[in-house]
């Protein structure tokens, strides 16, 4: 048993729903108790879909348990089939139905329906949402893909885009455009917008583009093994990664990787002098593995940040994540406990966080700017406007998204210059966040109460700050102050200094100068 407040991922049947909802002409019958329909609103509200997810629930209740839940399941499958007339169905159990041990696959088979019925086996007590999506997509492809000749023209499939995917809608558009510029047509994009009939013709493509390893890698591997389709390993998020991706595609197809970069502005934006202040900004990255690893490369190579923390919540990708972190001189944080992430962020003291919705809230709590780079996300990250992460337009979007939360260069300079002014002192807050400027607390020499109990410190011979040093610390801009405090204390500890003075502060500053 594990006490949990927030989960990065839902249960695996939500992953299956993401695949079913992404597709057309497919229907999912889920053996699940009353109440599990809550998951519908993730699709209708967060993704703002205008149709109900193609999912029918058995919604069994307590009184059904003594009776015939298997019969209820069969009736539900038959009714859903008759009502929705799908090209194919998937059937499975949620966590509770897994315990009552009806066999959805076997039960559905006995009905002899006139469409393929694909059973799903999703272990709810050991796996999670991404696994559910990956496994469901794999099973659909395995059951439906048919051997066939390759298309005459060079074509590929796009694998892994689902419902409730972070920017999947626009990534698909952007990658499709980039491939078209190379002369490559998309055969099938799946599961997003694909029908079961489309899945059947996937083997006609020359190769596969794996957009999201979390939700498409198993299918990519199976298609490679069974239908000899190679698949791309580079995820085209960031300018460098997009160029590498195009080179990889060129190697697979013999076509030229050079496509027009006329809409690509991110490199010049990053080179322009206003971006100089971004140099060495300390950034902490935590997200799903694919987006976190892509972000790490962009941060380090394309924007010039210093990556001070890197990790992911999906254990399936712990190995490549650890390898990348090691190359960057870091230890990867692999956890699905947001309290651990919060502690790691507080310890690293970054100037910016790139993460999920949870890290956004952590950032708010710690007063650190944050940009969202991966699921799970709230409704605002399913925007109305075109906002891909992949390809060259994705690079433009990423530059804007990451830089906006930071105080802009000139603004930062002015804030430091005028920080004692009534509008700009620490407690005033940002004007665009609706905060009201309030008069600074310490107008004269009066110091705020020292957070540390000095008398006790002296007794125990532990560190304490002299009032002058504490006052000097206050002059450092608030967003680097915690780090300055920590560095000074660490430095003082190594020197055996217990009373931290203004000199100690500046000696530490010189010591840690980069």
């Amino acid at each position: 048993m594990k006490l949990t407040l927030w989960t990065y991922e839902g249960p695996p049947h939500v992953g299956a729903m993401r695949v079913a909802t992404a597709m057309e002409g497919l229907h999912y019958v889920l053996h699940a108790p009353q109440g599990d329909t809550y998951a519908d609103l993730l699709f209708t509200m967060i993704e703002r879909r205008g149709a109900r997810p193609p999912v029918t629930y058995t919604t069994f209740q307590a009184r059904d348990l003594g009776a015939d839940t298997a019969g209820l399941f069969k009736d539900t499958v038959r009714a859903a089939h008759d009502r929705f007339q799908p090209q194919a169905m998937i059937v499975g159990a949620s966590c509770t139905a897994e315990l009552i041990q009806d066999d959805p696959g076997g039960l559905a088979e006995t009905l002899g329906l006139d469409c393929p019925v694909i059973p799903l086996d999703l272990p709810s007590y050991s796996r999670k949402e991404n696994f559910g999506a990956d496994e469901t997509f794999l099973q659909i492809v395995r059951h439906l893909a048919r051997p066939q000749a390759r298309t005459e023209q060079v074509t590929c499939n796009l694998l892994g885009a689902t419902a409730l995917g972070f920017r999947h809608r626009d990534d698909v558009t952007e990658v499709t455009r980039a491939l078209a510029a190379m002369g490559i047509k998309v055969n099938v994009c799946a599961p997003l917008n694909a029908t079961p009939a489309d899945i059947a013709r996937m083997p006609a493509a020359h190769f596969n583009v794996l957009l999201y390893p979390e939700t498409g890698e198993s299918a990519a591997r199976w298609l490679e093994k069974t239908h000899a389709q190679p698949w791309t390993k580079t995820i085209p998020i960031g300018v460098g990664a997009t160029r590498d991706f195009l080179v990889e595609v060129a190697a697979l197809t013999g076509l030229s990787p050079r496509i027009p970069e006329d809409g690509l502005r991110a490199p010049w934006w990053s080179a322009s002098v206003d971006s100089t202040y971004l140099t060495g900004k300390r950034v902490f990255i935590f997200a799903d593995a694919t987006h976190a690893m892509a972000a790490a490369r962009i941060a380090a190579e394309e924007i010039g940040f210093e990556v001070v923390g890197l990790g992911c919540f999906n254990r399936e990708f712990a190995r490549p994540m650890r390898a990348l972190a090691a190359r960057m001189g870091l230890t990867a944080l692999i956890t699905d406990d947001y309290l651990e992430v919060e502690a790691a962020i507080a310890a690293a003291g970054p100037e910016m966080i790139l993460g999920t919705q949870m890290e956004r809230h952590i950032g708010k709590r710690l007063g650190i700017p944050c940009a969202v780079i991966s699921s799970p996300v709230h409704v605002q990250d399913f925007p109305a406007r075109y906002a891909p992460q992949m390809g060259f337009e994705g690079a433009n979007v990423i530059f804007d998204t990451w830089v906006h939360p930071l105080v802009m260069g000139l603004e930062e300079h002015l804030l430091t210059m005028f920080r004692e002014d009534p509008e700009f002192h620490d407690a005033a807050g940002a004007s665009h966040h609706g905060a009201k400027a309030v008069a600074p607390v310490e107008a004269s020499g009066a110091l705020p109460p020292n957070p540390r109990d000095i008398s006790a410190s002296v007794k125990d011979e532990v560190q304490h700050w002299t009032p002058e040093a504490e006052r000097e610390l206050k002059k450092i801009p608030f967003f680097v102050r915690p780090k300055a405090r920590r560095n000074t204390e660490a430095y003082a500890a190594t020197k055996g200094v217990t009373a931290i003075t203004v000199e100690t502060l500046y000696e530490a500053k010189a010591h840690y100068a980069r």
Partner: protein
Amino acid sequence: MSLDLPTTGCRDVPVLKERGQREVFCGLTGIIWLHRKMPDSFFLVVGSRTCAHLLQAAAGVMIFAEPRFGTAILEEKDLAGLADANVELDREVARLIERRPDIRRLFLVGSCPSEVIKLDLARAAERLNAQHAGRVQVLNYSGSGIETTFTEGEDAALAAMVPALPSTEAAELLLVGALPDVVEDQMVALLTAMGVGPLRLLPARRIGDTAAIGPNTRYALIQPFLGATHSALQRRGASHIQAPFPFGEEGTTAWLKAIATSFGVSDELFEAVTAAPRARARKAVASQTATLTGKSIFFFPDSQLEIPLARFLARECGMRPLEVGTPYLHRELMAPELDLLPQTVLSEGQDVDLQLDRLALAAPDLTVCGLGLANPLESQGFTTKWAIELVFSPVHFYEQAGDLAGLFARPLRRKTLLEGQR
């Protein structure tokens, strides 16, 4: 308003009972508002990742405000041997109590998985009560989907608290149901002005203010979904003051009147206390009725508030209910409401696909439904009011009557505003 409706009274209307797919929340959702009401309590769900995910989806951003609820997620090893699960639970609870020393009351909340594997949370609560005696009171109830629908979670929680209430011989009035603090204060002020009392609340805001109960206790229900709590109170010998529920001017007045009668409040005093707020409520509702009068409305089942709300909208706002769905119809508690509701189709339970077919035929002006249905219906051209807001928002008693009508008028006004856009 239109008290001259041609046909009134649904007491004998046959109810359409349906079984099939239900598009409803489970009782765990009640935790979201209950934990706010009882700041010294913690709600520990014993369940699966699905339960945790549900709470997260339902609580939204609230989850980051140091919520006093969480899920002990069952893992594979817990399913292998049940003895193990009890040891695990004890450990997690001990850790939780240590981390949150401000917690005075802990609810172990059963879920579908814990019910199906028959994890005995009642015994676990007893055992933990002994272990943490004097520091924390441990109670248990089920919020599982197989047993409870949405607001029935609050019912189950309150019913679990009743046997633990101390006994008294005092003749007190117990007011039952969780309300937003602001509304609760208005209710207390009205009753106090009539000289009714002493007043006790269930749930109380703090465990120290827990009500006592006995044969001389009279109680009134503020919410319609408290069937199990009603039975538990009866078993403790308390007597029920039957009334319509305090929605709208008429409902609030009838509710107060039932209590006033029971406590021998004179008509003059009742009139003196209620005249001004009644006028205010009527005026506030009137400002919304232009939008609502003559419009038809269709309720999907959700919270058991549907019947009282349909009664308010029909009688005070001039709307025409076409179908009023409720997840569960407690005939005894609902009788005063049914008497007032104009004749309409009543449905209990749900087969969502069939109900959607009926909706298409009825083509109402406004549809009250859950968030899983609202956007899909909007995209088909229906106008919807999402039902959950009616549970979270302050809607009871006089001062909220205008807001309550406003919640239904807003989607219609918006539709008119955006007409040129579509």
